């Protein structure tokens, strides 16, 4: 089995077989939507309450209880253990797996509370693939190359009749068209989530493009500040952990031993489960991101006020 698409489907079947609630998201979901060709990683949103079952599943796969023997390991980049309180606190976990002796190394990334996404991903569990709306939210990262994917997902959503398209469209012409067709009932909620929409009817296309640029920069800068908080917490933890143990992470041990080791370490060395668990912490991240965005694109206070999304939208 060399095909990453076959791999994700077989893994999805394993999740379903264990009644683990989860959906495929990010790059491989974009492959399914016909937007992206070249990813091998599979990213999953898993209900934090089912994380324990996922750990058990990986242990059984390594022991060959559910078929062929897998090799599963944490990966050597910053990420938390597969543990309820960490994934519920916004961390991600990064694993590598070999599903057969001759297979390629599979990369699996797990979110419990994905960035920029609330609980609505649970509506997609029947299809097993996150909706275009959810994937578009997750793609509003600090990587400029993700933003054309946001627009493509939004255009697909628009032509599929999904009212959420107006929250993500980046193409001025299609955004105006979609906004004209939005129902009055949906407009209020959409403006709350994306304040730029309130200005649509009173600005020309050049001004709209300018505001789209400021809006994108705000998403990017706040996401960067969010990411830096988690990275700093991981670095501090890892430094402390390295001082009292010998060797490299990840170890060559079976997955459940690795898992026990890192769960013990995060407890002993104080990796915070929810670095952005308070409103004050999220407000601070938003403030720093806003300041950076203002500097990078020379945005005026009025422009920032026009596009600034609520804290609950950008840092739920």
């Amino acid at each position, binding site marked *: 089995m060399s095909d990453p698409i076959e791999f994700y489907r077989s893994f999805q079947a394993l999740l379903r077989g264990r009644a683990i609630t989860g959906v495929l998201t990010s*790059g491989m979901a974009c492959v399914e939507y016909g937007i992206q060709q070249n990813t091998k990683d599979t990213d999953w949103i898993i209900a934090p309450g089912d994380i324990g079952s996922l750990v058990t599943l990986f242990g059984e796969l390594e022991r060959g209880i559910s078929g062929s023997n897998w090799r599963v390991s944490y990966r050597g980049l910053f990420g938390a253990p597969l543990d309820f309180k960490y994934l519920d606190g916004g961390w991600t976990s990064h694993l590598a797996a070999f599903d057969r002796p001759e297979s390629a190394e599979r990369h699996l990334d797990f979110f419990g509370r994905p960035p920029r996404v609330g609980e609505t991903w649970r509506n997609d569990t029947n299809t097993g693939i996150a909706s275009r709306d959810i994937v578009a939210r997750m793609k509003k990262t600090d990587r400029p190359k993700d933003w054309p994917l946001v627009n493509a997902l939004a255009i697909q959503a628009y032509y599929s009749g999904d009212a959420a398209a107006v929250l993500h469209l980046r193409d001025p012409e299609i955004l105006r068209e979609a906004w004209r067709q939005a129902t009055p009932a949906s407009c209020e909620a959409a403006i709350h989530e994306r304040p730029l929409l309130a200005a649509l009817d009173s600005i020309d296309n050049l001004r709209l493009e300018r505001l789209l640029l400021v809006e994108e920069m705000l998403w990017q800068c706040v996401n960067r500040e969010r990411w830096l908080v988690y990275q700093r917490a991981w670095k501090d933890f890892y430094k402390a952990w390295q001082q009292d143990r010998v060797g490299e992470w990840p170890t060559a041990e079976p997955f459940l031993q690795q898992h026990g080791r890192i769960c013990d370490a995060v407890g002993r060395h104080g990796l915070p489960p929810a670095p952005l668990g308070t409103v004050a912490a999220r407000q601070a991240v938003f403030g720093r991101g806003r300041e950076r965005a203002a500097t990078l694109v020379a945005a005026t206070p009025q422009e920032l006020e026009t596009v600034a999304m609520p804290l609950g939208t950008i840092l739920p």
Partner: protein
Amino acid sequence: MTNEQTNPTGEPGHPADPVYPERYYEILARDLGEDKARWARLPYAERMRELAWYHAHFNTPDDLSPWPAELDGGVDRG
């Protein structure tokens, strides 16, 4: 708002295989490149067959990197 048509070659259990208006593919070509736009026009099953062929013959990179140099006529993994 529903210009979407469903292509009958879509596989059950996977996203519907709509054909979008031409301007969608033009935006893909502008933002992501002509090859991605060409691939996106294919029916779902053909898109997946093409990717399976690439994965079987080339060591393609992870996550959002550009296609590797060997796809421009270089080294076959086999």
